[in-house]
């Protein structure tokens, strides 16, 4: 189901890796540095973008090879219609250029998203609730872009307009009000789109999360706290009103760049940052799953969960596996040991990964 007959050719530490007989649950077991996450990264390249490490393509090419890499897989459909062969590679002649093929025909990376949806969670996200608010804003934007691609334009337009306004406010010669009016109009329009996108995202996630029980899997309660008015007109007015204050501060003090994503543990109402590592991980997983469902729509979907079992106690692990079973997505999990996956090994395809080589158990 979903992806199978997967090949990795000179991809990071995998010289030539072949995975066949993939199942609903797929476990990659091995020491740190064995190359488990590399397999997930290779699979993440079947989505548009730079993959789960957001790495540059030349970094993904194996050291022993020609400087190029290739990844391919067969995508099967639940209705048993003809499977599709997906491939992606780096062109060694034009370093940094990604080639994508669908059934051996050249395609653009963007078209991959027409075939399947891929979501992932890696340990790099573990500190999300402890980090600065800016990290959580970026997180919201990334999730929103996966649902509404135009969100990325609003975000970059807003940033550019914000830089313009901040520059205007710090000019030695005070600029005429009309110039500020003009910049603020652009700022307010992009800002309203940006903040509304985030609000819509958090609403949709909350709808899904609220349907879940509080226990045993910690359930996150999300709220989006806007850093300014939600509507363009009101935001423009507020910006105009605040010129004096902002000029004194040397920067813009209201607007979506001051948004916050508040996360707390539902039921106990404890801020996520104060929860245990396991609870934080459980909440991150819950958000990832909720978002993956929203993003997948009716496409086949893939969930790549890197090192998620380690932080969870047995009860939560069991709850996670139950939840994954309810869903249609193909799941790829990594771990250093097989034991934490005891609940699902019976129904899983298990591979042992060692120094970039893979063996089916």
């Amino acid at each position: 189901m979903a992806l199978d007959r997967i090949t990795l050719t000179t991809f990071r530490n995998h010289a030539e890796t072949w995975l066949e007989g993939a199942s609903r649950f797929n476990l990659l077991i091995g020491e740190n540095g064995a190359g488990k996450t590399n397999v997930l990264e290779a699979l993440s390249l079947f989505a548009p973008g730079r993959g789960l490490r957001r790495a540059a393509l030349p970094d993904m090419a194996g050291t022993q090879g020609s400087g190029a890499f290739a990844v391919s897989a067969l995508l099967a459909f639940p209705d048993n219609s003809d499977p599709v062969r997906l491939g992606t590679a780096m062109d060694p002649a034009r370093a940094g250029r990604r080639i994508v093929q669908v059934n051996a025909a050249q395609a653009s990376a963007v078209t991959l998203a027409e075939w399947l949806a891929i979501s992932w969670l890696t340990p790099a996200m573990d500190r999300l609730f402890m980090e600065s608010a800016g990290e959580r804003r970026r997180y919201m934007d990334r999730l929103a872009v996966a649902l509404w691609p135009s969100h990325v334009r609003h975000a970059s337009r807003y940033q550019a307009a914000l830089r313009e306004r901040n520059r205007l406010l710090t000019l030695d010669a005070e600029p005429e009000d009309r110039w500020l009016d003009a910049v603020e109009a652009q700022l307010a329009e992009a800002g309203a789109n940006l903040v509304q996108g985030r609000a819509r995202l958090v609403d949709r996630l909350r709808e899904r999360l609220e349907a879940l029980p509080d226990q045993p899997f910690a359930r996150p309660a999300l709220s989006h706290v806007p850093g300014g008015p939600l509507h363009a007109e009101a935001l423009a007015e507020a910006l105009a009103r605040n010129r004096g204050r902002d000029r004194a501060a040397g920067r813009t003090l209201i607007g979506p760049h001051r948004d916050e994503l508040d996360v707390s543990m539902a039921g106990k109402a404890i801020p996520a940052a104060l929860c245990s590592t396991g609870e934080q991980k459980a909440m991150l997983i819950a958000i990832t799953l909720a978002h993956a469902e929203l993003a997948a729509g009716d496409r086949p979907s893939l969930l790549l969960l890197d090192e998620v079992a380690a932080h969870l106690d047995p009860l939560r692990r069991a709850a996670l596996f139950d939840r994954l079973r309810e869903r249609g997505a193909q799941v790829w999990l990594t771990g250093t040991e097989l034991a934490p996956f005891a609940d699902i090994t019976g129904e899983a395809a298990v591979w042992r990964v060692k120094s970039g080589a893979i063996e089916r158990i």
Partner: protein
Amino acid sequence: MSSQEIDTLSSALARLPGLGPRSARRAVLWLVKRRETALVQLLEALDSVREKLVECPSCGNVDTQTPCSICADPRRESRQLCVVEDVADLWALDRARLFAGRYHVLGGHLSALEGIRPEDLSIASLIDRVAAGGIDEVVLAMNATLEGQTTAHYIAERLEGYPIRITQLAHGLPVGGELDYLDEGTLAQALRARRPVG
């Protein structure tokens, strides 16, 4: 390796928009091989541009006559004025005769970060043209970029109070899009569906 002359020419060409050092060297070599043909033609063309081309004092267009052939054309609708950022935008709009009126070239767009202020653009002369009367409609045909739209908004405010209709190209233009890169069909559509500002 190469002579001083070639280096000087390469470095001058490299600064042309869209060229860069690599293409410049290639162009120089190509010209050197055709010293008696293409190079001569290029020299003559450059010389004639230097001799004859002038900026129109009225609209900012570049032409061999002053006022430019557009400003001087009596068949042009003098009651409509289309404001653009650059001459390239004027040419894009005029290539397919999309607009029947006259133009006004600003010479850029407002940008606090690039240090381009209202007084660095031909805005005062635009106000003068409008204040002189005889104009019913000003079409703001700025690029859909942040700077273009900021400039359009600013000019609309400056033109407030004059008895004219101020319109703007219809969006549907790709965000970040520059007029110069749009095909004629898209441009025609943006112009046809122009809407009042404010």
